[in-house]
C-alpha cells in the first residue's frame, strides 16, 4: 500500500494556502543556484514553471520532444481562461469559482486544491497581462469577458479564439528570457523515455535525442513532469498527434500512483469524423455555445437541408431539458445528450454522426459582423475542414476525446508518490474531479507553474542543501539507459506486417466503444480481455522500418503506442471498479430516472490511486478519501 498523505494544511479553507506558504521550508535566494531541476514538457505548466523557477535562481533543464518549446499542445486551446476577478460585477468571487469547479467536477476533486486554484486565478490574469498577452479589450480599454459552460457569471478572459496560443507564447517568452541568461538550458527534440529513482527518490531521466537516436542520462535534485494528458489513448481525439502518456506512464511503473485514469473528458463540440483515415478530430471552442443553439431534427430519417426544416420540427434538446443552463450545461452533460440523440437516429450529416450548432438566431440578433468578430477564426477553420460555410448553414458537431482529468496522484505540494517527482497541469489529477469546466485547463496549468510549484518545491529541496545530484554514471542510470536503448531498438527486430498507427487505431476503437461516453460492466470486462489481446498482437506483429540512430518518426510513435497499450487497460480497470456515475464517467448501471449521472457518495467519495505491482500483476487500488467541509454534496442539476 502507498501512503497517500495529501498534506492538505489545517485551518479554514480560505487560510490554508497562506498558512501553508508560511509553514513550508524555503531555500534562501543565494542557495537556489545550488540546485538543479529538470522540467519535462513546455506547455503552459512546464514553460511557466521553468521560467519561474529560473527567475528564482534554480538551474533548470527543460526537455521537449518538439523542435521549439512554443509548439506544445496548450497552444491549441481556443476559448479562454477563467479568473475570479468579478470585473463584470455579476457576483463572482473566489468562493464562487471554487464552488463551480467542485460542482462541475461532480464532487470528485480535492477541496483545498481547488480553492487555491481559484485564489491564484486572479494573479494569473495580472501576470499574463504584464507579459503582453493581448487579451480582448472593451472600447474603454478594460479587459473583456465571456461566459462559459457550467457557470452563470462571465469570468472568462480570452484572446480571440487563440487564448492558449497567446498564454503559451507569454510563458514561452518568459522562458526564452531565462534561456538567454543561461538559467534555463533547453533540450529540444528530446523524448523522455524513463524516470530514474535512487533510494526511492527521483534523481533524473533517460532521454532519447530524436535527431541522432542517442540515449542519454540527466540528473537533478528534482524532476517535474508537465507532459499533458492521455486523451490520445482513444486514437481519435482533439490532442496533437504526438501527445502521449509515456512520461507519466513510465513514472507510474517506477512507483508513482496513477489517479482516476477513467476520468477522461469527451468534449461536446468537435467536428465529426469525415472518413476512415481521419487522423484527429478538431475542436470547435465551447465558447460557440454562448451564441449557437444546438438541435437535431425531430424526425428520424431527415433528408432536408437544415434551413428547410421548420422550427416545430427541430428538437432543441438541451434548451428543452435544461431550461436554466440551456446550451451552456457542462461538457459531460452536453456530450452525453448528443450521444443519446445520435444513437436514437436523429444524427445529421452524410454519416449521421453529428448534431447541429446553429448561429442563425445569433446572426439575426447581433448581425453577421459581431458574430464574425467573436468567432471568425473558428468559422474559417470549420469551413476549411468541412467545406461548409457556417454563416450560411449550421455547423455539425459531435463529442470527441479531449482532456484527462485523471493523472499522476499528487499531494497539495504537487508531488507524486515518488519523493522529488512532481506533476503539473493536465499530467496530474488534482483539480477537476470527474469533469473539467471550460476555460479551466489554462487556469490550472498556469497556476501550477507560476504560483504553486515555485513555492512548494522549496519544501522538498531545502533539507537537501549541499547534496550533490546522483552522477549519471551511477548504476541506476546505466541500467535505466540500457533498458531504454534496448526497448527502443527491439521494435526494429519485430519485422511484423502492420504499422503502429494501425494498432493504435484498433486500440482506440476498443476504448471509445467500452470506455467512452457510457460504460457498463459487460463492456468493460470485454475491454479488459480485448486490450491485452491487441497489445500482444501489436508486440508480435508491428512493423517498423529504418534505423534507431537518426530521425525516425515511426520509431518514436511505436514507443508511445506501446505505452498507450499498457495504460488503456488501467482506464478500463478503473472504470470497472467505480460502479457509480460521476462527471465524465457514466456507468449505465448508475443513473437517475431522468438518465443523469448518479453518484454514490457513500461508497465512492475517494480518489482511486493505482499502484504498479509489476509486469503481470494488476495494479493495486489505494484510496484517498475526499472530505467536503465547505460544500454540501448534491445531485448536480442544471435545470
Amino acid at each position, binding site marked *: 500500500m502507498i501512503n497517500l498523505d495529501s498534506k492538505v494544511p489545517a485551518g479554514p479553507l480560505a487560510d490554508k494556502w497562506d498558512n501553508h506558504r508560511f509553514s513550508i521550508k524555503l531555500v534562501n535566494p543565494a542557495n537556489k543556484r545550488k540546485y538543479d531541476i529538470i522540467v519535462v514538457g513546455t506547455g503552459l505548466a512546464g514553460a511557466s514553471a521553468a521560467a*519561474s523557477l529560473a527567475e528564482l535562481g534554480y538551474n533548470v533543464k527543460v526537455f521537449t520532444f*518538439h*523542435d*521549439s518549446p512554443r*509548439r*506544445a*499542445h496548450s*497552444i*491549441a486551446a481556443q476559448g479562454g481562461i477563467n479568473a475570479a476577478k468579478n*470585473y463584470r460585477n455579476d457576483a463572482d468571487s473566489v468562493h464562487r469559482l471554487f464552488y463551480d469547479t467542485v460542482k462541475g467536477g461532480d464532487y470528485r476533486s480535492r477541496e483545498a486544491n481547488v480553492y487555491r486554484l481559484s485564489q491564484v486565478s486572479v494573479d494569473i*490574469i*495580472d*501576470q499574463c*497581462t*504584464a*507579459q*503582453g498577452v*493581448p*487579451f*480582448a*479589450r472593451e*472600447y474603454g*480599454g478594460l479587459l473583456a469577458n465571456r461566459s462559459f459552460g457550467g457557470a452563470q457569471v462571465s469570468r472568462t478572459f480570452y*484572446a*480571440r479564439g*487563440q487564448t492558449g*496560443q*497567446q498564454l503559451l507564447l507569454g510563458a*514561452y*517568452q*518568459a522562458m*526564452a*528570457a531565462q534561456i*538567454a541568461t543561461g538559467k534555463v538550458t533547453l533540450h*529540444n527534440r528530446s523524448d523522455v523515455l524513463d524516470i530514474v529513482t535512487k533510494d526511492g527518490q527521483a534523481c533524473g531521466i533517460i532521454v532519447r535525442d530524436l535527431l541522432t537516436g542517442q540515449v542519454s542520462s540527466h540528473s537533478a535534485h528534482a524532476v517535474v513532469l508537465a507532459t499533458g494528458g492521455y486523451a490520445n489513448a482513444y486514437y481519435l481525439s482533439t490532442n*496533437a*498527434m504526438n501527445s502521449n502518456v509515456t512520461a507519466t506512464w513510465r513514472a507510474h511503473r517506477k512507483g508513482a500512483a496513477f489517479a482516476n485514469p477513467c476520468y477522461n473528458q469527451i468534449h461536446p463540440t468537435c467536428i465529426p469524423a*469525415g*472518413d476512415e*483515415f*481521419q*487522423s*484527429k478530430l*478538431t*475542436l470547435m471552442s465551447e465558447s460557440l455555445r454562448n451564441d449557437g443553439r444546438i438541435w437535431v431534427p425531430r424526425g428520424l430519417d431527415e433528408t432536408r437541408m437544415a434551413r428547410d426544416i421548420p422550427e416545430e420540427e427541430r428538437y432543441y434538446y438541451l434548451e428543452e431539458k435544461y431550461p436554466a443552463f440551456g446550451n451552456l450545461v457542462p461538457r459531460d452533460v452536453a456530450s452525453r445528450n448528443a450521444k443519446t440523440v445520435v444513437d436514437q437516429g436523429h444524427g445529421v450529416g*452524410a454519416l449521421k454522426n453529428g448534431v447541429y450548432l446553429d448561429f442563425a438566431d445569433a446572426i439575426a440578433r447581433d448581425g453577421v459582423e459581431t458574430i464574425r468578430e467573436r468567432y471568425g477564426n473558428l468559422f*474559417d*477553420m470549420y469551413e*476549411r475542414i468541412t*467545406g461548409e460555410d457556417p454563416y450560411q448553414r449550421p455547423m455539425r458537431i459531435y463529442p470527441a476525446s479531449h482532456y484527462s482529468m485523471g493523472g499522476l496522484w499528487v499531494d497539495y505540494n504537487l508531488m507524486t508518490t515518488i519523493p522529488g517527482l512532481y506533476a503539473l497541469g493536465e499530467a496530474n489529477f488534482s483539480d477537476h474531479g470527474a469533469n473539467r469546466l471550460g476555460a479551466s485547463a489554462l487556469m490550472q496549468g498556469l497556476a501550477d507553474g*507560476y504560483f504553486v510549484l515555485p513555492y512548494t518545491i522549496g519544501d522538498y529541496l531545502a533539507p537537501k542543501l549541499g547534496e550533490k545530484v546522483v552522477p549519471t554514471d551511477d548504476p541506476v542510470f546505466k541500467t535505466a539507459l540500457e533498458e531504454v536503448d534496448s526497448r527502443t531498438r527491439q521494435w526494429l527486430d519485430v519485422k511484423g506486417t502492420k*504499422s503502429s*498507427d*494501425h494498432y493504435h487505431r484498433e486500440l482506440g476503437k476498443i476504448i471509445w466503444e467500452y470506455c467512452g461516453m457510457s460504460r457498463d460492466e459487460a463492456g468493460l470486462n470485454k475491454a479488459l480481455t480485448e486490450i491485452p489481446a491487441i497489445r500482444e498482437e501489436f508486440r508480435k506483429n508491428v512493423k517498423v*522500418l529504418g534505423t534507431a540512430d*537518426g*530521425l*525516425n*518518426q*515511426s520509431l518514436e510513435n511505436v514507443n508511445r503506442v506501446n505505452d498507450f497499450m499498457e495504460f488503456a487497460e488501467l482506464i478500463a480497470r478503473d472504470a470497472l471498479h467505480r460502479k457509480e456515475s460521476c462527471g465524465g464517467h457514466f456507468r449505465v448501471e448508475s443513473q437517475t430516472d431522468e438518465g443523469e449521472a448518479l453518484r454514490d457518495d457513500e461508497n465512492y467519495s475517494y480518489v482511486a490511486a493505482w499502484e504498479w505491482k509489476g509486469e503481470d500483476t494488476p495494479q493495486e487500488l489505494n484510496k484517498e478519501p475526499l472530505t467536503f467541509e465547505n460544500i454540501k454534496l448534491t445531485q448536480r442539476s442544471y435545470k
Partner: protein
Amino acid sequence: MSNNLNFKLRIWRQDGPDAPGSFLDVEANNISEEASFLEMLDVVNENLLENDIEPINFPHDCREGICGTCGVMVNGQAHGPEKATATCQLHMRKFNDGDEITIEPWRAKSFPVIKDLVVDRSPLDRIIEAGGYISVPTGTPQDANATLIPKEVAETSMDAAACIGCGACVAACPNSAAQLFTSAKLHHLNVLPQGQPERWKRTEAMVETMEEYFGTCTNHGECHEACPKEISLDFIAFMNRDYVKAKIKNRSLASQAK
C-alpha cells in the same frame, strides 16, 4: 458520400543534412476528398511500409493549424495553394483527380534539412531569446485593469501575435529573409504600453540576431502570400522605423550611461 481521388506525387527524400537528396515518385490512390493533405501522406506512408520502404518523415503535430510544426512546399508554394491555410488544414478537395503534386521541405539555407521533409528552424527561437519578451518575473504585478489599453491597440497587437512561427515566410522568400516573423513578434510587444521600457533594446537585438541567420528583405511580399495567418507586411515597415529609431536612441542611452 465523398468521392475518392488519385494523385501522382513527387516527394523529396533526403537521409540527412549532408546526404544527397532525390525525388521519390509514388502514387496516392483512392484518397477521400475529406482527407487533409497530411492524412493523404499518412495513407502514402502506410503503403510504403507495406512495400518495405521506410515511411517519409514529415513535420506535423496539432493538425489544426496552430502549432506551426507542419509545413512543406506544395508545387513550389509554401503550405500549398490555399490562401491563409497551413499544410495540415489544406484538404484534398482543393485538388483535382489525377493531379501531379510535388512535395519538398522548406527551402532556405538557414533551415537545413534534417531528414526528408523535416527541417531545422531553431534560428527563429534564437530571435525570440534575443529580446522577444517583456521582462516581468513571476510575482504579483499590478491589477490587469490598471493600465487601459485601447481596443485598437490590443487588436493590432493580437494581429501580429497570431503568428504561428512555422517559417513559411522564410521558405517563400527569394532571399530567405525572416522579416515577417521578426516584425510580427516585435509589433506584438512594441505597440503595448507594457512593451515600452524595453522597446528599443528589444528591436535592435532581435533585428540584429535575425540578420545573423537570415537574408535581407527586398519587399517581394511572398512571405505575406504564404503566411497561414495573413500577417501584414505593414509590420515590416513598423520594424524598420523602430530599428532606425532604436539605433539612435540606444546610442544616446549608452552615452548617458558613461
